């Protein structure tokens, strides 16, 4: 097993200058993640599950700790890496899947989905063909492929978003409740795609409202509920 991520004593809190106060999100979290491993984050609302994902993705700034990521370019602490490297890793190796699509005006659904492949250097026709395959897989009607997702319903937007987020196999995938409000076909497609990526070696950290959706994929669980030291559980324990 190859290590993908080593999280050591990660601490995150929010300083709210206008209130003059700080809000602790989580403290001293440590865990390792291997290639092809699926880690479920659990805890009450507000326990810091999404915050942890965003901290790993560098959308949030951590207070202390280390997040060692084994990139194909070398090993680096994500918390201290230069922004240019974070941008590069986000393009090439670290994916973040949310339930929200950042649609842009006058960009078609298929172009939006093909974009990660284009940025990774695939040719335009190849990227487009692949994009259409995944739009179909997630159940986006063909008539919508060349339409602008800004006008889509929430559910359709989310499917486009998933197709875009999962089209390019990555080393580390952060999943922030991607199944919320998905219909069953799309959910099945999502789980199938995740299983495929996992088998191909993608390490995943996920937050799910209904972990049952991905029960078969879960290798480990971390409980972020405060007052309890975050301890690891096996997936044979009832979640």
């Amino acid at each position, binding site marked *: 097993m190859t290590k993908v991520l080593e999280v050591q004593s990660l601490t995150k809190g929010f300083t709210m200058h206008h209130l003059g106060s700080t809000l602790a999100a989580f403290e001293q979290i440590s865990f390792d993640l291997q290639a092809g491993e699926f880690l479920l984050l659990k805890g009450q609302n507000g326990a810091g599950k999404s915050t942890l994902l965003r901290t790993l993705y560098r959308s949030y700034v951590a207070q202390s700790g280390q997040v060692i990521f084994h990139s194909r370019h070398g090993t680096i602490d994500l918390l*201290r890496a*230069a922004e240019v490297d974070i941008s*590069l890793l986000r393009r090439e190796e670290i994916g973040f899947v949310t339930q929200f699509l950042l649609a*842009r005006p*006058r*960009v078609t659904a298929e172009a939006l989905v093909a974009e990660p492949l284009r940025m990774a250097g695939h040719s335009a026709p190849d990227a487009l063909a692949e994009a259409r395959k995944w739009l179909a897989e997630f159940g986006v009607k063909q008539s919508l492929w060349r339409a602008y997702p800004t006008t889509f319903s929430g559910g359709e937007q989310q499917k486009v978003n998933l197709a875009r987020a999962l089209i390019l196999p990555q080393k580390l995938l952060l999943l922030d409740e991607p199944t919320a409000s998905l219909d069953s076909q799309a959910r099945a497609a999502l789980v199938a795609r995740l299983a495929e990526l996992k088998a191909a070696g993608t390490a995943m950290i996920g937050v799910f409202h209904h972990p049952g959706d991905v029960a078969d994929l879960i290798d480990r669980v971390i409980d972020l509920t405060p007052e309890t030291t975050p301890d690891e559980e096996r997936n044979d324990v009832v979640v």
Partner: protein
Amino acid sequence: MTIALDAPRLVQAQPLLTAQNVSKSYGDVQAVRDVSAEVFPGEVLGIVGESGSGKSTFLRMLNLEETPDTGTYTLDLPEVEGNLFELDRFARRMLCAKRIGIVYQNPHLGLLMNHSSSGNVAERLLVAGERRFTELRERASEALQASEFPLERLDAPPIELSGGMQQRVQLAKAIALEPALLLLDEPTTGLDVSVQALVLDTLKRLQQDRNITMVIVSHDLGVIRTLADRVMVMRRGAVVEAGLADQIFQDPQHAYTQQLVHAKL
């Protein structure tokens, strides 16, 4: 935890633009204090801040219109080396004409209002030495088309055009020579919201299609959020916070940035 400019690097990417310790005073007023920035090829750097924060002055320095009291500025281009602030007027003019495009908030600064729109674009090609009429016309049309300017108005003077169209002419002029660096100074300020969205959209498309390196200055966080990969927040001439765009907007660290982000509707 702040990210130092000399943070460990995974990949040895060479920044296109490097500005270091740039300061400038006008009399007693320190307009820009010790600002440093790096922009990598294909990246969009957004600079936000309220009026008088020094962001536009800094941008004008990047366009070599102003010279700071101290500081260095380099571009990683084959034709120039060393501190660009030390270039003479002629070298500055040639560099700006050929490699740096700029779009001003006020179209009067960037356009000849009574010349034709195509002529405004052609002027840049003329400075670079193009002397064929048909070629000038073709390339001007191409640039205008890329800026989504209606070609039936090709020869209309900007004075007869709407604000949004004027910005497109400026943009066409800026990209006509495929610049290495595109500078945008409040490009959508003063436009109707709907027109603003169209201009932003054009910018976004251009950025993606041509992978142009941009520095965009705006007090409008929405504009910066739409375009920028990285953001620099300026206040009273100094940088108070810099980071990845999503980090600045989702988890601002500095009190001023928090105030700015939370004030956004």
